[in-house]
């Protein structure tokens, strides 16, 4: 990053050559009131909406309320030195952030200033944080998957590149964990991730950054932080800033390793706090409050943010920006104002539930009500093949399990179906920070849906999975490579998987002291 001295000389030369010494004309105004990070400014008749304003001492502000004689502005920085009577000038610019390769691996604030100890950000261009979303003509349908590495999501609620999938749930149900796992799994998969932390404790953010670093995921990740201690204005700007960084990747691409990557993923953690920040700002600016004291345009702030997620057509570069917004519900109330708003904007949602989490189902996905409106269009052929029976079996299991709770003796077909469902529910469980690759997912789901796990005792299913996938990678590396490369599960590969599973099953059951049988027993009930 060091610059040579002759470069410095040439920069100075060209700057002096091109320096425009003409007088500059700007609109000026006077601060008449300041407090709570909001300033009322008299004058500034030439100010534009969302224009960046310059206060004395280099503090910046953003014009929000343009009234007849005054302008209401939020202060983006330390408001402590701004006082009544200060002169404010327009800048003719809107709020911009640096974008591009230099941000990868960095932790920055919503104005693109570094928060880590890696020195100044090097950048070649900037982008306005607010922008109108790409139009219909420039887009194309979502067709390729974002592999989250989470079996339940990749198989049942697939997320496509360019999609907007909401992750919703109460506190402590693993929403952020899901997003972080997804980012970890993108290592080497050609997807630039942007994690936007809004209104979170800095200790939580530090933990996330440490986890990403530990798993080598920071190389393809940008972290934008507006912590709980920041002003509402900065918290409000954070997701738009993250989105602008993602748009740069989508449109111009960034160099990741040797490849030019044009796919990006933005995680907004979380939009409930974003709505709170906007509510705070609006109330201080004396905009009329509406339902739950949110201002009237709280829907629009989220829709214009999430609409910027897109899959561009080939003619327009073919990049993509996927959005994973998070919403925290209070006591599972998804019919509150902000959750319903964001549910209606996104292309599907992943519901996480406290009860499932506490009963040991992790990730605590409620598969019944989680959906992805993009559906199997965003799945590889191999995954489609195993996901179809999985969906069916799990759906049947859920309805039967509710019904069978009251029945004492069941016929064999019902019992078999319950057993199958139980094993499948066990297979989709997964520990944190351990994303599973596509080929492993396909292998274990294929084995589970063909009934080869039915006589494995339920508590040992995860052991079986771990050992079996390890065995596949050592002994049947070619089969696994074929799935990974072609992303297709043909008959030959399926047969090879089945044979390997049958062989391993015998040794596994012999080791655990149970003989393989045709009549599997019903184990303990899982929710």
């Amino acid at each position, binding site marked *: 990053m060091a610059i040579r001295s002759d470069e410095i000389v040439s920069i100075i030369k060209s700057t002096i050559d091109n320096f425009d010494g003409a007088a*500059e004309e700007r609109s000026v105004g006077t601060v008449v009131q300041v407090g709570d990070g909001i300033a009322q400014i008299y004058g500034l008749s030439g100010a534009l909406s969302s224009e960046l304003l310059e206060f004395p001492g280099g503090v910046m502000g953003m014009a929000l309320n343009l009234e007849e004689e005054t302008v209401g502005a939020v202060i983006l920085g330390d408001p402590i030195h701004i006082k009544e009577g200060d002169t404010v000038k327009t800048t003719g610019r809107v709020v911009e952030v640096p974008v591009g390769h230099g941000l990868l691996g960095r932790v920055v604030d919503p104005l693109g200033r570094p928060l880590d100890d890696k020195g100044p950000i090097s950048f070649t261009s900037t982008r306005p944080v607010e922008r109108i979303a790409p139009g219909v003509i420039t887009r194309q349908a979502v067709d390729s998957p974002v592999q989250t590495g989470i079996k339940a999501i990749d198989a049942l609620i697939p997320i496509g590149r360019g999609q907007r999938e909401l992750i919703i749930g109460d506190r402590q149900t693993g929403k952020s964990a899901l997003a972080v796992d997804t980012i970890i799994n993108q290592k080497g998969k050609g997807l630039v991730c942007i994690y936007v932390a809004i209104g979170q404790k800095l200790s939580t953010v530090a933990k996330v950054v440490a986890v990403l670093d530990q798993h080598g995921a920071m190389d393809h990740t940008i972290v934008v932080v507006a912590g709980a201690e920041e002003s509402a204005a900065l918290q409000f700007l954070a997701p738009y800033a993250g989105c602008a960084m993602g748009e740069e990747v989508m449109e111009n691409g960034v160099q990741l390793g040797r490849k030019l990557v044009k796919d990006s993923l933005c995680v907004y953690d979380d939009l409930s706090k974003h709505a709170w920040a906007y509510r705070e700002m609006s109330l201080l600016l004396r905009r009329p409050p509406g339902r739950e004291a949110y201002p009237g345009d709280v829907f629009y702030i989220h829709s214009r943010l999430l609409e910027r997620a897109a899959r561009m057509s080939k003619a327009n570069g073919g990049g993509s920006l996927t959005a994973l917004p998070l919403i925290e519900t209070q006591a599972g109330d998804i019919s509150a104002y902000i959750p319903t708003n964001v549910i209606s904007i996104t292309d599907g949602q992943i519901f996480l539930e406290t009860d499932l989490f506490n009963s040991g189902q992790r990730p605590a996905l409620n598969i019944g009500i989680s959906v992805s409106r993009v559906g199997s269009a965003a799945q590889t052929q191999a995954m489609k093949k195993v996901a179809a029976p999985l969906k069916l079996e799990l759906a049947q299991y859920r309805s039967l399990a509710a019904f069978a709770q009251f029945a004492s003796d069941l016929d064999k077909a019902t019992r078999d179906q319950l057993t199958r469902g139980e094993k499948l529910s066990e297979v989709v469980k997964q520990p944190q920070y351990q994303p599973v690759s596509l080929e492993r997912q396909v292998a274990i789901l294929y084995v589970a849906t063909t009934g080869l796990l039915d006589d494995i005792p339920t508590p040992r299913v995860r052991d079986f999975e771990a050992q079996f996938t390890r065995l596949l990678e050592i002994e049947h590396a070619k089969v696994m490579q074929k799935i990974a490369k072609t992303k297709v599960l043909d008959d030959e590969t399926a047969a090879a998987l089945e044979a390997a599973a049958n062989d391993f099953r015998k040794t596994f059951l012999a080791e655990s002291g149970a003989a393989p049988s045709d009549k599997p027993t019903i184990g303990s009930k899982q929710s």
Partner: protein
Amino acid sequence: MARLGAARRYAEAVFELATRDGKVDEWRREVGIACGLAQDKRLVRAVDSPAVAFVQRRKAMEQLLAKRVSRQVLNLALLLVERGRFSSMPAISDEYDDLVRRSRGIVGVTLTTPTPLSEGELAAVKVRVEQLAAAPVEITTCSDPTLIGGLCVTIGDREIDASVSARLARLRKQLIQGTSKAAGAA
């Protein structure tokens, strides 16, 4: 500098009275005199103080102004004293000047220079500023040595900054941007 609030409303009332009586310029001169009194901070503190009886404050104000201004202007001053608002006199005066200028189509201009300008220079600048503002102007001058050179013209809420210090600041910004961009490209 014009402000919002009470000063504007007092100024509007005064302006309406003055236009009704056709005494706009007299009012302007006399309000200026009252405004001069308000420059004395100790006096303002005393006449605005609720701790001093109104009768005494009124007497003091009458003694100070009765011989120098008309009855109406004195009444304005007394009204302000009664309400503990004599400190807003300069703001009212500014607002009133603003209203008078507006009614005559004159634009108020503040000219800031590093050193005071000579008569000839001022006249030359006035011609140029009138072209810029496309209206007759009334110039208020002030000096600010931190400008280094050049001048800065404020027409209403438009500021045209042709000072050396502003140009230096701009050059500095461009140089910093140039180097950080070069570092990004490297």
